């Protein structure tokens, strides 16, 4: 069954430009789909339609077999994990409290929250004894991003939305987190939409790569097929990949 379906959706900024132009995309359960394209292509906008941070002005978004508009927005958001570029951690909460946000909103008891937080810290490679009581301001960028991922996974959502999750990290940390993401995903099998402008990241993490340009999906395929694409616009993105490849290896 499809986990997320975009059916002919369009989105226009109120009183402004059209960002999405009749986009359709079906994402299966447990599938990782990367949205790739340059800034302003509409990747983040498409992502935000899923948890109703934005509403399409034409077409439908179906989440878990139900039209997103039928979902109560609060319910919907609590059942979807969300990771953003600089993690968006609450600076006045400790690491443990940040991870516990959704479980607390959902009214879990303290013991269950405590054990869940420890479990997630282990999963994301942050020893609980060291990190649980630290403040976001005391963490490195990579550590913050790990906490961001742990927070998104806290209530065990079936869907994970990731908007440039590794975008602000140095190349070494980024590679480290990417490889850990693959490991975690192998175990958890979440449905993931990953927004990135880095074609290499998309190719290495995603089951399918959707290339966006000017509010449209111009190509969508598995990485091997994408690498073999003859589309000039796709080739241009692929060429950009080879340059950093040669630089950091």
């Amino acid at each position, binding site marked *: 069954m499809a986990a997320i379906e975009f059916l002919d959706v369009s989105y226009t900024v109120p009183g402004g430009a059209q960002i999405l132009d009749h986009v359709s995309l079906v994402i299966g359960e447990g599938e990782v789909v990367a949205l790739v394209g340059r800034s302003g292509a509409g990747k983040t906008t498409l992502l935000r339609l899923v948890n109703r941070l934005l509403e399409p002005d034409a077409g439908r978004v179906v989440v878990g077999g139900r039209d997103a508009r039928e979902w109560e927005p609060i319910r919907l958001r609590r059942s979807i994990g969300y990771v953003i570029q600089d993690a968006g951690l609450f600076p*006045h909460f400790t690491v443990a409290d940040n991870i516990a946000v959704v479980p607390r*909103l959902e009214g879990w008891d303290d013991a269950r929250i405590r054990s869940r937080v420890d479990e997630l810290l282990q999963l994301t490679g942050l020893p609980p004894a060291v990190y649980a009581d630290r403040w976001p301001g005391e963490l490195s960028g990579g550590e913050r991003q790990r906490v961001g991922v742990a927070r998104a996974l806290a209530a065990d959502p079936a869907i994970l939305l990731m908007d440039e999750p590794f975008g602000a990290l140095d190349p070494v940390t980024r590679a480290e987190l990417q490889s850990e993401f693959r490991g975690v995903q192998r175990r958890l099998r979440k449905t993931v939409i990953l927004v990135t402008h880095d074609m290499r990241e998309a190719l290495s993490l995603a089951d399918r790569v959707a290339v966006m340009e000017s509010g449209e999906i111009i190509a969508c395929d598995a990485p091997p097929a994408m690498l073999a694409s003859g589309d000039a616009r796709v080739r241009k993105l692929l060429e950009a990949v080879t340059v950093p490849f040669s630089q950091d290896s």
Partner: protein
Amino acid sequence: MRLVEFWLSHRNELLTLIGQHILLVGTATLVAVAIGVPLGVFAARRPRMSAPLVGFANMVQTVPSLAMFGFLLPVPLLGGVGPRTAVVVLILYGLLPIVRTTIAGLNGIPAPVREAGVAMGMTPRQLLQQVELPLALPSIVAGVRVAAVVGVGSATIAAAIGAGGLGEYIYRGLSMVDTTVILAGAIPAAVLALVVDGGLLWVERRLGSRRSHRRLGLTAGAVSCIAVLLWGGALLAGRGSETIVVGSKNFTEGVILGEIVAQTIERETGLAVQRRFNLGGTLICDRALLNGDIDVYVEYTGTALTAIFRQPLGQDPAAVLTTVRESYARSGRAVLDPLGFDNTFAILVRGRDARALALRTIDDAARHTSGWRAGFGYEFLERPDGYQGLASTYGLRFQEPPRVMDLTLTYRALASGQVDLIAGDATAGLISALDLVPLEDNRQYFPPYDAVPVARSDMLLRYPEVGAALETLAGRISAARMREMNHAADAGREDPSAIARRFLSEVR
């Protein structure tokens, strides 16, 4: 040294005044927070609303505090004489910094943090309580700090409308021209401001380090509850049903007469008396008496005739008394028998000048005034029996327009040569103390100013013994005796209550 002695000898009163001051500022600040923070949240959500709102708060802030007290006096429910009006004014002043810092604090929250909250499924309320307000808190506390510190300062002015607080000493000191008494109020007020500033700065810093939010929240809650309880208690205790409230004007003689009236009522009737002295002017006293904020105070017939009832000037003391008595009766107030002296305006010059130029009457002085400067109290410039009429009656012209200053400061200004002619009180103790000479009103411009207690008729009906007690004062205070008492306060630095006690023990 005198300052420390003053504090020691007045330590109970000092503690009461500090308590009142803290209560005024504390209550006002708490209410300002309760109103200002929601307003700030509202404005931050609707940027279109925030400009007019902050603009309005700004405008309120620019109104001088004394003027603000004046505006509010006649307003029902909010206004009147006493701490209530003072609290309202302090709240209005406190709103601007709090609203402004609330808006700034909320706008300063990084967009990804807010977005993360929404995306995790927080309701707008949960977002506000768990994320936005805690993050804006250091900024809000900074605003509260400004509001509280400004409040400590503004509250000193509240003494002018009988709200109590450390301003009492400042006003008392001004009216006695006694720097020690002024400092006795000003120094604790300054220290209080520093303590409040330091304390809230500490809270702000702690919040900045993002710890122990919950405990601070509890502390703040507990402090608010205690303040509100204290306040309620103070209001209840402040005016029982069996209490007579005695008011007075804000100069030495007014306060002494207030003490004499208050002690007479206490002695003769055994009723409890509350003192609301140093009210800032004739019209404030009048308004307070009309509203029932005070029950009795001492007024002068000529002042009531012209300034309160706006009647033409009259010269016959008996006729003036009758007119005034009838006018008061129409608004439910009774004039008791005159105390026995006439405190007319005295046009004063330095003794040195009077002797050198052989000045005896105002007409004599009119020949020299074109080269002189004059200084008058605020009231004298405005009132119908004041400067305008005097100038046209005697053809007075000065080198420059008269300087406006606090009545009690004019004596010093004259003695030190900053001005050359003032209008003082005929009974002022400073006249002889500073070697000043009153000029004769040879054209009889000024009406009689017989001192009379004015009281609310309903109070006199309820407590006839108060009327009887005040009758015992009729005709007992001569002009000479009054001058002597004023002098004891102004030059002898004696306490008004002690002066009144001595007087009452002598006349018995």
